[in-house]
């Protein structure tokens, strides 16, 4: 779209009431590789697709531990994301220094919101080109929080950001009522299944390109990579993809819940309907 006139600064509104620089920053977030966050009543799970630029590169680090009770997953400009992760780490450590307790996730949300918004209102700054999913567990239970370059910080039941994340959100919306009482393993399976939907048909999740992190009641924040990821991938190997060719109600094997069977033989929508495309918010 030709909108060059009002997009030189973040401090310039367009006649349609948009800040184009912020919109462009959101586009940058949408180009990062996908990541998914899901929570139950007792646990919160993050999964992320690690991209490797070519065969010789190692896969990038997408999930950062902030404290024993929370962590963050990043999509977009990873260098911006690292700065935000470090800022959050400092906030967590600073709260612990003052109060000797883990920081409530609500406090982190507040601080993050203010920090992100500052870069959308002052001349000479640019918005952070990265979205975060914060997973945390505090006395109010498990939390999944999604942040945007537009400084929108919202608590979610489940969310996904990054490239082709709409497919993941469709899966999450369909299975939303199953999350609250899921066990940690089931929650990880749901997260992996939704993440898998963001991949093109010929690709698959592997131990090399997937990271899992979990935090919750009795579970300090733990990141799983490579070998530790393999058993969870094996658990969902039998489940057919919801975006793949629809066999009648693919029977999943063992633990993970089978994908929803199409109702009355009607084919599931290949592209999600527009209203259902909105991510679920609390």
């Amino acid at each position, binding site marked *: 779209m030709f909108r060059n006139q009002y997009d030189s600064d973040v401090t310039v509104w367009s006649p349609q009431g948009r800040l184009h620089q912020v919109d462009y920053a959101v586009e940058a977030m949408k180009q990062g590789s996908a990541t998914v966050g899901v929570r139950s009543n007792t646990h919160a799970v993050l999964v992320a697709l690690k991209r490797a630029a070519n065969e010789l590169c190692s896969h990038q680090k997408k999930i950062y*531990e902030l404290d024993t009770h929370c962590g963050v997953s990043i999509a977009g400009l990873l260098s911006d994301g690292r700065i935000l992760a*470090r800022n959050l*780490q400092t906030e967590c*450590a600073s709260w*612990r*220094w003052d109060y*000797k307790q883990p920081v409530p996730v609500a406090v982190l949300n507040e601080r993050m919101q203010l920090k992100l918004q500052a870069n959308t209102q002052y001349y000479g700054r640019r918005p952070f080109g990265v979205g975060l999913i914060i997973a945390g567990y505090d006395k109010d239970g498990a939390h999944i929080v999604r942040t945007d370059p537009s400084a929108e910080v919202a608590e979610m039941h489940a969310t996904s950001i990054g490239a082709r994340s709409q497919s993941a959100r469709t899966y999450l919306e369909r299975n939303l009522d199953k999350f609250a009482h899921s066990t940690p393993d089931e929650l990880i399976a749901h997260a992996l299944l939704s993440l898998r939907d963001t991949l093109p048909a010929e690709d698959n999740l592997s131990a090399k390109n997937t990271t899992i992190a979990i935090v919750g009641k009795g579970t300090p924040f733990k990141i799983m990579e490579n070998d530790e990821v393999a058993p969870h991938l094996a658990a969902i190997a039998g489940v057919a993809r919801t975006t793949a060719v629809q066999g009648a109600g693919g029977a999943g094997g063992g633990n993970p819940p089978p994908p929803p069977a199409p109702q009355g033989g009607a084919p599931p929508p290949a592209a999600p309907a527009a209203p259902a495309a909105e991510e679920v918010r609390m």
Partner: protein
Amino acid sequence: TAYAEVEDAPDWIKPRLIKNRKWNPYSMEGGSTVAIAGDDFVVIGSDTRLSADDIKVINREVDKIHALSDRIVITSSGFFGDILHLRKLLESHLQKYRFQYRSNMTVDLCAELLARQLYFKRFYPYYTGAILAGIDEHGKGAVFSYDPIGCIEQLPYSASGAAKPLITPFLDCQVGHVTLSEGSERPKLTIERACALMRDAFRACAEREITTGDSIHLVIAEAGKPPRQERRKLRED
């Protein structure tokens, strides 16, 4: 002398000002701690009593040994407020290191860090005789001993606190073999022997030293294992 009373409480100064001048920012809570380094382990022991004015017992079950990570343990004696603060300080540094460098701080780095932190407060010191113990990168036990302003020394064993002059000669004899007679046997320093020596040392202190007692808290850190703990009762008088 005749002047001492007047110096102590002059008539021409208000009582509140006299009290402010006499206030001491430090207080000694007594007790003692010991650490012994072995080939692939380190044993740290302390008593668990907090006293005030040397004679009053404030608490009989206080932890003076604190594991900062699987491989680093800090223990200290002296002003308890500063002991608690040092723990917080080191934990904060260890956490920051972990996030910045993506690996855990090693015991030798932590030892230098503590020496520096102590010297930063050279003119308002942490009133503590700190001992840092742990397993180094080669899997060997290490004990670092400090004075209140950060003089650091790596030693095979170290004691700190009220009973330091009682325990140190005992360890010199039994662990360092410095004062042991020529014909006496010199058994190898195993974890069992180190723990037994610690218990003996603390029992000896509890007999003769007023601020040590109530119970012994032992922490044993071995290469490749999380630190384990033991407690034994001691004299309560």
